[in-house]
Structure formats: structure tokens, C-alpha cells
């Protein structure tokens, strides 16, 4: 043990900013991160053991006790529940012989829940060790667990043909890409990356920034910040080093387009990063990849290697004086790490706690230096803009939302998958394209976005100034209970709150409680009023985007579907609120009487 941990420590030069990598290495080695390993790491890093535990305990996928030879994480999301999740869950418990949250008697399997794993177009899905299984049914579960019981590894079951993990064929054997509609920007085969980059290196950095600015490209991660402006500010900021980070955390439930981009067009993304690095003067880039996509890691490493061999990464790129290289930072299971400042903390080996802003990452980001964080799709767009010019890009979409955007479509429709749309198309247009029958509502941009009514909002345009969309597009038809969906979203936010600030940590719990009252038929008008006012509190005072958006599913469904809520609330009878459970309240007395009052007195 001592020897092993020492070699992990020296692999990362005892640099505590690489703690997450070290923890992954320990977990891979031992199956979990035990006390002894924590002790040795703490000695090597001059951190108290509890300080290391602070980091471990923040992340969903770090485990601290033996949890079976195979760890099964079944995705529990709204979309999974619409596609047979319950049966699959029951089949897993049956086959494995233990309940979720437990390890079975033979210590072979541990069953765990997890949030959306970026496969909403092929749910139900589960992660087992370092692979995933999709489109699950009870029969498929039986087969997979049976093979694992016979001693196969999860990799052998998922990839029975033994494909090389560095090859795209391997990724294909695990997941489908389901690209349904192609447009002008993404997934173009045969790009001449050398020629594109040579064209860039022939310009001075400010010209590159000017091209990106004039294309009006806005960040595809959600906030829609103008990319050219971000690069300019980051380029101008003072620092000894500058960093480029590609945000591949893709944690928003319902989105999976970054996964497909990284699978189909990884080099578009990498070249976008190289161009950004040249433009702002950076030598080091990081791809922050969510754990749920770990089956892409070897493949992406191979893409990086090919770029190095082609002279597009490394020292003296294309024989110029420009040096730049990229490493992959694995996440460890935390939605909040999609927030750029939390992501940077995580890259520094810490808990993914969003930072206090200002300073912004472009001023003081990774390791305190100016850092430019962009979404996967943003970088892929950059690659194409520098190939074809900003006018070409501006020719698509609307004036303020230029170009195209990838939608990850899931839920009630015939063709779930990836659709490239020009900004500006209407909601109805998309619904028609994807084959949605009888749609009632669409949750745009995932739980952090807004729920729209197809009847009321069908003609609204998908663009930054109207229906802004981060890519997640979940469709619910008229048979669905929206309040159930809201409960799932609120549970998600409570679970994913980092907990550093009061309104989100404490307020989220109260909103979830209200939703439970609604579903139990014990809420009245006052509860709806409380939701509006407590939601406004969270929106206004939370420290980061998670807390400010968490009330949105509730608030937007209440706005668009008021009748749904009016139908399920009840009138107060007498002086007590319906949420007050008299029976339950009195039980406390009964219990106390039974346990505390001596027999002879009773």
C-alpha cells in the first residue's frame, strides 16, 4: 500500500492541485478510498486527512468503503422514468440480490442511483464500472448481470468484439450517437485541420479575436456570453500564464450533444481550443470531462496524440514558436462542477464550490491566472468559423443569435437524438421535426431552464432573445404528470446543491417539501404563494446559477399551467392548514407517553 500511494504521489509530484487525479488512481487500484490511503496522501500533501475527506465526500463517484467488485449506477432521471426505469430497477435488485444503496452478500455488486448520465435518447441506461449499457430492459439486465456473475469484466460484456478502447468503434459499441438532422456547422467529415490552423497562425491573435467577435458567436454552455469578448478580456488580463478550459461536464439533465460532438468531431473541439490558445496567449489547456463519459477518455487521449503527431499540439505547433498542449481532467460526479468557477476549483483538486465573483475567471481563474472557459460546442463552432469566415456563420440564424445550435432531444417523440437547428426556428417547427405527438410541455434547457406550454408558446423562437436554449429539449405529452417531473427536478437540485450558501442549501429543501405537499393533496393557495415568494428569494440571493435557477421548473410551470396547480390544491377546512397533519402531530405525544411514562403511572 505504502509503495503504491508513494508512486501515485510522485506521479503527480506531490502537487495537491492534482488531488482528484490521485483519488481516482487510488480508487482504481483498491476499488475504494480507504482510511489508510487517505492518511498516506495527507502526509504526502501536507493536508489534514479531513481536508482530503472534504474533497472526497463532495463527489458522488468517490467511494470510501468496499462497494462490490462491480459498481452499478442506474440513471434515475425524468426521462428514464418515462422509458421503463422501474422495471429495470426491479430487475437489477432481483438479479443482484440487494436493494439500491447496498452491496450484495457475495460482495460482487453494489447498486447505486445516479442522475442523468447524458444518454436521454437511449434510456434506461446504467454505468457499470468504466462502461455503460443503454436501452435496458429486464431481460437485458438479466443477461448482463449473468455474464458478470460468470466472471467477465463489464468491459468484456459491453464490448464483446474486443474493440480497442482508443478507437471510435469502441465508443460506438457502447452508445449510439443518434444524429437525426445535420446542418451546416457540425459533424462535417474531412476537415483539413492543418490548413485551418495555418490560416490562423498567419494572422495575429487580435485578428482571430476580431473574426470570432464579428461572427457574433455566443457561448453554447447556457449563459450565451459573447465568445470574442471573453477572449479579448482574457487576452488583455494580466497573468504569468493563461489557461484554456473546455467545459465537457455536460451535467444538465437531458443534454448529451457534447458527448456526441466529442465522439463524432473531437478534433473540431480540439482545434477550437488550439485557436483560442493562440488568440489569448495560452500554453496549457484542460478538458474537464464528466465521469459519466469516462468511456470516451482513451479515445480522446488518442485524438490528442494524433494532434501531437500532426504537429497541431505540443511544442512549436506547425513549426512556429507557438506551444500549447491539453490534458484531460476527469470530474468525479457533481453537477455544480459545470459552473465555470466550481469547475476551476475542481481542476485544482478541491471541492467544486463556486467561487465568489468578482474576480471572474478571465481575471483570476485556474491557479489564479486568467482563464477562458468555453463549452464543447463553442469550441467546435470556432473551428468552423475560422475555416469558413464570420460572414458565412452570420448568414445562419438570427441577428443576435448567429449560426446553428445542437439540440439534445428526448422524451415523448419518435426521433430522440441530436438535431442541428438554425437559431430562430420555432418551438412548433422543432416538435414537428422530431415527431412529437400530442406534446403538452417542453422543458427547455433542462431543469435550470424553463417549462413552456406547447399551446401557448408554440410560435416562440429558439434564440437568445426569446427561448434561449442550452441544448436540452425534453418533451412531455398530454399523458404526463408535470408535477411529478417537477419533483424529480427539485430533488435533483437539493441533491446537487453544493451547500455553501443559505438560500440554495436550505431554501431548496423547503421548495421540495412544498412539491411533496402538492402531490400528496395537502397543499392550499398559501403554499402556492409561499413557493412564489421563496422562489424569488432563492433566485435573488443565491451565490451561483444553481441556486438562482433551481426554483425555475416550479415557477415556470405555475405560470404556464396554472390550472394544473389549481386542480390539485385543496381548501383549508377550519383553522388548520391542510399541510398540518394532526394525526402525525399527536403521535409524538403518544410515543412520548408510551416510552417515557412509567407503567405504574399510566
Amino acid at each position, binding site marked *: 500500500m505504502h509503495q503504491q500511494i508513494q508512486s501515485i504521489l510522485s506521479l503527480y509530484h506531490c502537487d495537491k492541485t492534482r488531488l482528484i487525479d490521485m483519488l481516482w488512481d487510488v480508487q482504481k487500484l483498491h476499488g475504494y478510498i480507504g482510511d489508510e490511503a487517505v492518511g498516506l496522501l495527507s502526509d504526502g500533501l501536507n493536508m*489534514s486527512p479531513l481536508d482530503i*475527506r472534504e474533497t472526497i465526500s463532495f463527489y458522488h463517484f468517490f467511494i470510501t468503503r468496499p462497494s462490490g467488485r462491480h459498481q452499478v449506477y442506474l440513471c434515475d432521471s425524468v426521462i428514464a422514468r418515462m422509458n421503463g426505469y422501474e422495471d429495470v430497477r426491479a430487475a437489477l435488485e432481483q438479479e443482484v440480490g440487494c436493494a439500491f444503496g447496498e452491496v450484495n452478500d457475495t460482495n460482487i455488486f453494489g447498486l447505486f442511483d445516479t442522475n442523468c448520465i447524458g444518454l436521454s435518447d437511449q434510456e434506461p441506461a446504467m454505468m457499470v464500472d468504466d462502461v455503460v449499457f443503454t436501452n435496458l430492459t429486464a431481460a437485458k439486465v438479466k443477461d448482463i448481470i449473468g455474464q458478470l456473475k460468470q466472471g467477465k469484466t463489464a468491459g468484456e460484456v459491453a464490448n464483446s468484439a474486443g474493440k480497442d478502447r482508443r478507437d471510435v468503434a469502441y465508443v460506438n459499441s457502447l452508445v449510439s450517437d443518434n444524429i437525426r438532422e445535420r446542418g451546416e456547422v457540425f459533424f462535417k467529415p474531412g476537415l483539413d485541420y492543418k490548413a485551418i490552423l495555418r490560416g490562423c497562425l498567419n494572422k495575429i491573435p487580435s485578428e482571430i479575436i476580431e473574426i470570432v467577435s464579428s461572427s457574433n458567436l455566443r457561448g453554447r454552455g447556457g449563459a450565451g456570453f459573447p465568445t470574442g469578448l471573453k477572449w479579448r478580456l482574457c487576452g488583455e488580463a494580466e497573468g504569468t500564464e493563461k489557461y484554456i478550459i473546455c467545459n465537457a461536464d455536460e451535467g444538465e439533465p437531458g443534454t448529451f450533444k457534447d458527448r456526441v460532438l466529442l465522439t463524432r468531431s473531437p478534433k473540431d473541439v480540439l482545434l477550437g481550443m488550439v485557436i483560442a490558445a493562440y488568440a489569448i496567449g495560452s500554453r496549457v489547456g484542460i478538458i474537464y470531462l464528466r465521469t459519466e463519459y469516462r468511456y470516451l477518455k482513451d479515445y480522446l487521449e488518442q485524438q490528442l496524440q494524433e494532434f501531437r503527431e500532426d504537429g497541431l499540439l505540443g511544442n512549436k505547433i506547425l513549426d512556429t514558436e507557438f506551444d500549447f498542449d491539453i490534458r484531460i481532467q476527469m470530474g468525479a460526479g*457533481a453537477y455544480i462542477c459545470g459552473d465555470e468557477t466550481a469547475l476551476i476549483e475542481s481542476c485544482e483538486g478541491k471541492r467544486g464550490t463556486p467561487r465568489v465573483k468578482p474576480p471572474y475567471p478571465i481575471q483570476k481563474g485556474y491557479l489564479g491566472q486568467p482563464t477562458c472557459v468555453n463549452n464543447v460546442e463553442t469550441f467546435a463552432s470556432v473551428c468552423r468559423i475560422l475555416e469558413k469566415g464570420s460572414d458565412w456563420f452570420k448568414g445562419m440564424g438570427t441577428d443576435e443569435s448567429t449560426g446553428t445550435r445542437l439540440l439534445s432531444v428526448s422524451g415523448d417523440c419518435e426521433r430522440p437524438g441530436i438535431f442541428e437547428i438554425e437559431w430562430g426556428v420555432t418551438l412548433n417547427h422543432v416538435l414537428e421535426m422530431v415527431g412529437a405527438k400530442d406534446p403538452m410541455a417542453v422543458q427547455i434547457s433542462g431543469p435550470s431552464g424553463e417549462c413552456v406550454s406547447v399551446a401557448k408558446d408554440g410560435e416562440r423562437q429558439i434564440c437568445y432573445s426569446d427561448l434561449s436554449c442550452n441544448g436540452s429539449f425534453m418533451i412531455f405529452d398530454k399523458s404526463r404528470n408535470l408535477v411529478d417531473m417537477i419533483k424529480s427536478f427539485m430533488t435533483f437540485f437539493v441533491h446537487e*446543491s453544493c*451547500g455553501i450558501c443559505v438560500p440554495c442549501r*436550505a*431554501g431548496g429543501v423547503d421548495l421540495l417539501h412544498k412539491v411533496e405537499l402538492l402531490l400528496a393533496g395537502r397543499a392550499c393557495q398559501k403554499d402556492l404563494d409561499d413557493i412564489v415568494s421563496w422562489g424569488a428569494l432563492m433566485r435573488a*440571493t*443565491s451565490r451561483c446559477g444553481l441556486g438562482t435557477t433551481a426554483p425555475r421548473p416550479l415557477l415556470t410551470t405555475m405560470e404556464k399551467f396554472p390550472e394544473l396547480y389549481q386542480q390539485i390544491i385543496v381548501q383549508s377546512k377550519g383553522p388548520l392548514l391542510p399541510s398540518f397533519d394532526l394525526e402525525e402531530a399527536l403521535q409524538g405525544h403518544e410515543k412520548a407517553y408510551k416510552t417515557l411514562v412509567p407503567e405504574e403511572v399510566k
Partner: protein
Amino acid sequence: MSVRITIDGKVVEAQEGEALIDVAADNGVYIPSLCYVRGKPCLGTCRVCSVRVNDSVMASCTVPVTDGMEVKVNEPEVTDMRKALVELLFVEGNHNCPSCEKSGRCELQAVGYEVDMMVSRFPYRFPVRKRDHVSKHIFLERDRCIFCQRCVEFIRDKESGQKIFSIDDRGTKASIEIDVELADKMPPEQVREASDLCPVGCIIEKGRGYDEPIGQRKFEIQSVRERALMGDEK
């Protein structure tokens, strides 16, 4: 550089980049807060210092002042938000002031008075949290922790710089932890510093108990508002 901002309609001068909460205090406007300590880096965790800055709500400890900023502190809507946040903290943990060693010295209690809190609008949760008595000089009454992070960030082992206090897990499952080995090495002044720095009665110095009589405790002699306006670090 000197800048001018308005706070509740009054024009005041300040140095650019100063924290808004300090500028307000220096100009006689009290903004309550539970995590901020004047002179120390901003933690931005409690959000109780939220005010309106040019129409958006911001935690004033996180806002560096810039010229022309329009700030509203005592406007009804944000005033009620600050109060609501304090109320949230009272129900999130278990705060039984009459039996608490920190009563009269507790910032949560003192700020509760300042924001005119009578009862919480949020349902009481009565969480079950375990007490920790293991270290020699300190016990943690976790029921009262508000996760302000003061102890985590500002109290370090003198020799190694390591964290003595830390937060385990996240969100609703978070709990404050103490490294017993390091805590047992804390000199008495540092133990006192930690327990005074904790805004509530969570970090309790063993053997101190109720050492000051009622009526003579910190905030009973001088309110938290008066102290803040004098530039006191609380």
C-alpha cells in the same frame, strides 16, 4: 481612486474596490451579515448582507464599489429577503437560545433581533445532528452550525498551515468536522479565537460554559449593529 456611490439616496465617498458592506458601515448604514469578518477575505456564504445594487440583488460583502453605484439597503423587498435568510438558518438547525452557552454572544441571535425576526416563516426541520466531544479543548454542538466557513478558512494549524476544521459531504448532508490531533495542539488563545469566531454556539470551548452573567455578554452590552458601525470585527 476615490468614487461616489449612493446608499439609500445619500451620496457617499469611498475608495474604488472597497467592499460595499464596509463602505455602508463607515457611513452609518448597518447591513447585517453572519459570515463576513471585516479585514478578512470575503466568504460570501450566508447572503444575509444582500442589498440592491443598480437593480440586482447582491451580497454586499462580495461587491467592490465602483463609481456611480446605486445601492438600496433599507428598501422593503431586500429587507425582507435578509430577514427570510436569517429565518431559514433558525429552522435549518436546532437553535434553542435559552440553553445555549453562546446566548448573548451569538451573532445569529443578535442579527435575528436586528432584522426583527419573531418566528420563522419556514417549517422547522428539527434535524438530528451528532455532537462531537472527542477533542480535548473543544466540542462541536453541530445542531447550531450554519456552515459559514469561518472556522474552515480562518483557523489553521500554526505549524503546518493545515485545516483544523472542515466540512464533510455537501448540501443537506454536510457536517462540520474537527481534526482531533490538530485541535489538541491548539494553544488556549487559538481555542478562544475559534470559539469567538464561530458566529453561533457550535464551536464551544470546553470548561468555559456560561462564564459571563446574563446582561453582561457581548451583544447585551453593545448591539451587533453598534459594533458593526464602529468598524468592529465582531
